[in-house]
């Protein structure tokens, strides 16, 4: 992740690249390098989500 400039309400000051997730941690606004990096971070921090449902 890379720190990018943000406004007082956590909003990016410049448009972020298309489909590149961001994370505001209360101090810095981070731009994920890729969806793969975001997916890995998300699975670690949102562990309660279920996997895709499968039919039996």
């Amino acid at each position, binding site marked *: 992740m890379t720190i990018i400039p943000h*406004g*007082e*309400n*956590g*909003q990016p000051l410049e*448009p*972020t690249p*298309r*489909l*590149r*997730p*961001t*994370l*505001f*941690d*209360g*101090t810095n606004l981070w731009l994920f390098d890729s969806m793969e990096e*975001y997916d890995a971070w*998300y699975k670690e*921090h*949102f*562990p*309660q*989500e279920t996997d895709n449902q499968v039919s039996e």
Partner: protein
Amino acid sequence: MNIQPIKISSKVINSNQFIHAPNQFIQDMGPLAFEGQFDLTEYLRQFIQQYLEETNLSSQNILNSSHSVITGTVFETITMSTLIPGGTFEQGDVIKALWRCTKSNINGTTSIRLSVNSTNSLVGTTTLSNITLIPATDIFIQQERILFIRNATTDTQTISNASSVSSDILTTSSGASGAAIDWSTNKYVILSIQLGSALDFVATQFLQLTVSKP
């Protein structure tokens, strides 16, 4: 003379995309192949006419699905916003705003506000909805508001912004509310979040605006 008009392949392309992501717009059109001579002026005229026909649809989608996570603060924070170029929304339009968030950790409640502003900030916003005190244990949050533009500069109607219902498709004793928003100039539609606990994470998956025109 052999004029090959461009066929815009997808009706999803809209003026917002054209204005704010012209490079992507051109990429989406694909390679242009010409045979023989062609009249550039006529070609551009056809292109513009076709573009206007394709974009003058009864329904358009404006979607921000960039993913945005907020944590570490209990101050209201902008999670997602979309620039609406002046003149995009007009009298008689119906706009459905739909958004989805997911939450991790259950330490505090969540408040979500949909607002409109001339700048991408929370100073001086007009609040369209303010859904407060979503229970801490609610970790899937999907909400919507339907706006009706009675007047493009003075009256955008929805359910009262004090209502905390997730959807305004309902019958209720709450009255309708009119917001004085001038859509003839550039506006940001802003989704902002206020966490009850800085230890929680709220991820916004998307903010979608569907515009239906008369």
